[in-house]
C-alpha cells in the first residue's frame, strides 16, 4: 500500500505501542511526553517511560547535542520497559530526526514539523540536503511532514498571542495529533493546561486550540491510513494508581520510612544529576518534619546526615557516582562507628564526570569496596521506578534494625523514567524498628550487640546514656578506643558477620521462567524490566531459561548458590563492563558470562533475547 494515497481510515487494535517525542531542549518534549504518559496511564494502560535529555541546560537551537527525547511504551497488558524501537516518532527539527531516526522501527510512523526543516537547521544537523525530500525515507517509514509551527502561529493570530509565544504551542499540535492517532482522550491534558496557564488566557487558549487542532488534523487531513487503539489493561491489580518517576518514588519512600520508623527525616545532600530531584522533592515535605540541608559539598552532605543519625534522625544522603567517591571516607566512619543511615546513589555513566545525564550500573563495585580498610556495607537496589519507594523503605529497615549505614542504588533510567504506581495502603506498610536499650545506665555499653549483632541505637542527647564514639577502632562492647590486636580482628569479623547475617532474614528469590535447566539469568537494579520480559519471551517460546533478580547485592541472598546449581549456564547482563558478575564468579565459582552494554542506555528486550539465545546455543 503506497503512502500518501487517499483512503478511509481504519482503527486497528494493538496490544502495545512505543512512541517517542524528540526536539530541541526548548521544544517542551519532556512535557509533551509526560502528558501522553499521564493520559495513557489514566486511560488504563500499563506504561513505562524513558526521558533522555542533554547535559546542557538549553543547548543552542537546532544542534545535535541539544536534542531532547521522551519515549514511552503503553500497553493493554503488563509491561516493564519503555520499549526498544518506537512505532511512532515525532521530530520537531532536523537534529532530532538525525539523532533518533535509526531507532524507529522500519515501517513506523514519522511525524515531522516541516517548518523546522529550513536551511539553517539542516546545516546545524549536518544534513546537506533536506532528508524529507529523500524518497528512500518514505520507502522505509510512513512519513507525515506537517506544518506544525505554522499551525501554531496561525492559532496565535486568532487568539492574539504574538508569533514567538504562539510558536511554542507547536508541541500541543503534535500531541493532539498523537492523541488522535492512538485514540486517547484529550481531557486530562486540557485540565492540566487550564491549571498551568489559568492566569495567562491567551496562552491557555492558544494551547487548547493547538491541541484540538492537532487532533482534528488527524481526523480531517486524510493523510493517515490507520489509527490505533490500545485498550485498557484488564489484568491489572485493582487499586488506586498514579504515575510516578523513580526519583519521586524514592522521595516518597524516604518520607514513608520516617513515618514508619517514627523518626523525623533528615536529608543532607549536594545537587548532582540525576539525583537532584530527590532533594527538590524532599524540600517540599517539610510538613512531615523533613529537614533538607543543601550542604556545601557531598562530604558535608553525608557528614551532616551522620550527625543527624547520631542525634536520632532517620537520615539520608543522596548523590550520584562522583559524589559517592567523595563520600567514601565518611561512609567508612558511619560503618566503623555503626551509625544507621542510608546513602542513595542514583547511578550515571562514568568514570569521572562521564555521561552525567545517561544511565549506567557501574557503581556497584565502588559501593561494595570503595572505602579504606575492610568495610562491608549492605546494598539494596531498586528494580523499577515505582519499586524505588519500597527499596527506600527496605534500605531503612536494614539500616535501623542492624544499626548500619546502607547503600541504596538506583540509576538515571529509573530516576527519570516513570510507570503507573499502585498506591499502597499506608497501614499495609511495614513498621521499622531499631534496637534500643532499657537497662540501667550503669550496665549500658554502646557496642554490646544483640542477636542480629546490632548495637543499640541511642540518640545523642538522651539522658544518662551519653558516651563517646569515633572512627578509631573501638573495643568490643565498651566502644572505648582500642589498639589491641585481637580486638581489631574480632571487630573486623563482627562487622562482616553482621552484614552477612542480614541474608538470614531475606525472602527467597523469585524465579521467572524455568525453575531449573539450561540457563540462569541473574540481574540487578534497573534492568529488571528488560531482563524479565526477555526471559519470559524466551521461556514462552520453549527455551529452558529462568531468571532471578537481586534486590540485595550485599549480602547476596542465601538461596542464590543453590539456585545457580540448578542450571547449566549462568549469564549476568549488566549496564557496565562486568561488576555483579565478579561477585557471582567469586562466591559461587561458576563460570558466569556477561552481557555488557555500556552506552548510557537501558537494554532493549530484543537485544537481550538475541544475546541470551546465543548463550543458549553456545
Amino acid at each position, binding site marked *: 500500500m503506497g503512502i500518501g494515497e487517499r483512503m478511509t481510515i481504519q482503527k486497528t487494535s494493538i496490544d502495545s505501542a512505543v512512541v517517542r517525542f524528540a526536539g530541541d531542549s526548548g521544544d517542551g518534549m519532556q512535557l509533551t511526553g509526560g502528558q501522553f504518559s499521564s493520559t495513557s496511564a489514566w486511560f488504563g494502560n500499563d506504561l513505562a517511560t524513558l526521558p533522555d535529555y542533554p547535559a546542557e541546560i538549553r543547548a543552542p537551537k537546532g544542534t545535535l547535542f541539544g536534542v531532547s527525547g521522551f519515549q514511552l511504551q503503553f500497553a493493554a497488558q503488563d509491561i516493564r520497559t519503555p520499549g526498544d524501537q518506537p512505532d511512532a516518532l515525532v521530530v520537531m527539527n532536523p537534529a532530532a530526526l538525525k539523532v533518533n531516526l535509526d531507532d524507529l522501527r522500519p515501517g513506523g510512523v514519522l511525524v515531522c514539523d516541516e517548518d523546522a526543516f529550513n536551511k539553517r537547521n539542516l546545516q546545524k544537523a549536518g544534513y546537506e540536503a533536506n532528508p524529507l525530500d529523500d524518497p528512500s525515507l518514505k520507502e522505509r517509514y510512513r512519513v507525515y511532514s506537517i506544518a506544525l509551527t505554522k499551525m501554531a502561529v496561525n492559532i496565535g493570530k486568532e487568539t492574539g498571542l504574538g508569533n514567538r509565544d504562539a510558536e511554542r504551542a507547536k508541541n500541543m499540535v503534535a500531541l493532539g495529533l498523537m492523541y488522535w492517532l492512538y485514540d486517547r482522550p484529550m481531557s486530562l491534558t486540557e485540565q492540566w493546561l487550564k491549571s498551568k496557564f489559568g492566569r495567562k488566557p491567551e496562552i491557555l487558549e492558544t494551547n487548547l486550540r493547538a491541541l484540538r487542532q492537532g487532533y482534528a488534523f488527524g481526523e480531517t487531513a486524510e493523510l493517515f491510513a490507520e489509527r490505533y487503539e490500545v485498550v485498557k489493561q484488564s489484568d491489572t491489580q485493582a487499586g*488506586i494508581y498514579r504515575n510516578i518517576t523513580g526519583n519521586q518514588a524514592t522521595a516518597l519512600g524516604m518520607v514513608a520510612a520516617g513515618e514508619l520508623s517514627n523518626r523525623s527525616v*533528615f536529608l543532607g545532600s549536594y545537587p548532582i544529576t540525576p539525583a537532584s530531584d530527590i532533594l527538590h522533592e524532599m524540600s517540599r515535605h517539610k510538613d512531615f518534619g523533613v529537614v533538607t540541608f543543601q550542604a556545601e559539598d557531598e562530604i558535608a552532605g553525608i557528614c551532616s546526615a551522620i550527625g543527624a543519625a547520631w542525634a536520632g534522625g532517620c537520615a539520608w544522603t543522596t548523590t550520584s557516582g562522583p559524589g559517592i567517591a567523595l563520600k567514601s*571516607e565518611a561512609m567508612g566512619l558511619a560503618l566503623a562507628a555503626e551509625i544507621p543511615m542510608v546513602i542513595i546513589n542514583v547511578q550515571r555513566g562514568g568514570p569521572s564526570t562521564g555521561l552525567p545525564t545517561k544511565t549506567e550500573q557501574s557503581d556497584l563495585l565502588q559501593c561494595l569496596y570503595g572505602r579504606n580498610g575492610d568495610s562491608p556495607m549492605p546494598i539494596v537496589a531498586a528494580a523499577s521506578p515505582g519499586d524505588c519507594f519500597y527499596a527506600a523503605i527496605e534500605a531503612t529497615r536494614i539500616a535501623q534494625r542492624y544499626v548500619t549505614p546502607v547503600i541504596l542504588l538506583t540509576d538515571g533510567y529509573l530516576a527519570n523514567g516513570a510507570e503507573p504506581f499502585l498506591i499502597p495502603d499506608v497501614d499495609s506498610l511495614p513498621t521499622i524498628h531499631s534496637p534500643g536499650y532499657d537497662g540501667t545506665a550503669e550496665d549500658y555499653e554502646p557496642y554490646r550487640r544483640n542477636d542480629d549483632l546490632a548495637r543499640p541505637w541511642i540518640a*545523642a542527647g538522651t539522658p544518662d546514656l551519653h558516651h563517646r564514639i569515633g572512627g578509631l577502632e573501638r573495643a568490643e562492647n565498651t566502644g572505648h578506643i582500642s589498639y589491641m590486636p585481637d580486638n581489631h580482628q574480632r571487630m573486623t569479623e563482627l562487622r562482616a558477620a553482621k552484614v552477612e547475617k542480614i541474608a538470614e532474614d531475606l525472602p527467597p528469590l523469585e524465579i521467572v521462567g524455568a525453575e531449573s535447566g539450561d540457563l540462569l539469568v541473574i540481574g540487578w537494579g534497573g534492568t529488571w524490566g528488560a531482563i524479565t520480559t526477555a526471559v519470559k519471551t524466551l521461556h514462552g517460546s520453549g527455551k529452558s531459561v529462568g531468571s532471578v533478580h537481586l534486590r540485595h547485592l550485599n549480602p547476596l541472598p542465601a538461596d542464590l548458590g543453590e539456585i545457580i546449581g540448578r542450571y547449566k549456564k549462568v549469564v549476568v547482563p549488566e549496564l557496565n563492563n562486568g561488576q555483579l558478575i565478579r561477585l557471582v564468579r567469586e562466591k559461587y565459582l561458576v563460570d558466569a558470562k556477561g552481557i555488557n552494554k555500556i552506552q548510557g542506555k537501558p537494554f532493549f528486550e530484543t537485544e537481550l533475547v538475541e544475546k541470551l539465545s546465543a548463550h543458549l546455543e553456545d
Partner: protein
Amino acid sequence: MTEQPQLKAKDYKSDQEVRWCPGCGDYAILSNIQKAVAATGLPREKHLFVSGIGCSSRFPFYMETWGFHTIHGRAPAFATGAKLQNPESCVWVVTGDGDGLSIGGNHLLHLMRRNVDVQLLLFNNEIYGLTKGQYSPTSGVGLVTKSTPMGSIDEPVSPARLALGANASFFARVIDTDHKSSAEIYRRAVEHKGTAVIEILQNCVIFNDGVFDHITDKKTAKENQLHLVQGEPLRFGAESDKGIALVNNQPTVVTVGENGITEADLIVHDEQAGAFYGGLLAGMDSQTFPAPLGVLWAHDRLSYEQQAHEQVGKAKARPGAGDLHRLLHAADTWVVE
C-alpha cells in the same frame, strides 16, 4: 532519667585517661571547658562535643558528655546535622588549625556564614601536632618544619580575618592558660545564638613550643595584649597609656598624652559595630599591634537551625500537613477495579 543535681567541673571528666603530651596547652583548655560546661547548668546529656582529627580533636573523649570523634576536617558538618536534628542540645565543635583551616576550611566557612548555633573551639598551635610536626595554615612564613626544611612559603591564614570574611556572628580570642578570660569568653559563647568561634592560642610543647611567647610571656604581656572590653577605649601597655586610634583613616598605635592624643581619640570597643570595625581588629598584624584578646565581635542574627525549624513549623501548620496517605495520593490518580 536520674535527678540532675548541680554539677561541678569534675563531673564532666570522663573515665578515659588523657593522652596529650605532658605540658601540652590542651590540658588547660580541657580544664577550662569542663568548668564552662558546668557553668551552663545544663545536664550532661545536653552537651554534644563533635571533633575532627588531631591532638586537639581527641578532646571529646575526655568529656563526660556525648562525644563524636569524627574524621579529619568535617566536624562542622557533623555538628550541623546534629544541631538541626536536636536543636535543644548545646553543641561544641572542637578543631585544630590543621583540621579546621586546612582540610576543613570550607566547612568552617559555611558553618560560620550559616550561623549554626554551636561553640567552635579552634585550637590554634600553628602546627600539625598529631602527624608530628608539619607546618599548618596558621604557621608563620619561614617556619622550618619536617615538610619545610627551607622554611614555609605559605602566607598564613588569620582565623579572625577569615571569620570576618565568612560573616561569622561571634569571634573571640583567648590564651589556653588564661583561666579568667576563658570562663568569661566560653560563657559568652554559649549564650550567643549562632556560631561562636573562639580561637584559642594553644602551645604545642613538642613541635612548636613557645610560638605565642611574644603574646603570652608575662613580662611583656601588657605591651602585647589588647584586652577588649565592651564600651571601653582600646588601651594597653604597662602604663595603660597606649591605645589605638584612626590616623589618616588607618588604625594606628598612639600614646595618650603624646602628640596631643587624648583618650577621646581612641577607638571605643563595640562588639556590635559591624564588619568595618571587625576588620580593624582582625587586621591588626602582630608586628605593629598588640594582640586583641576577648570578644572581637558579637552580632545578633538568626541562627540557622532556628530558621530551618521555623520553615518546618510553618509547613506543618498547613492544613493536611504530614499525612502520608494524602501525600501518596497527591497526583493525578486513577482507579482500577
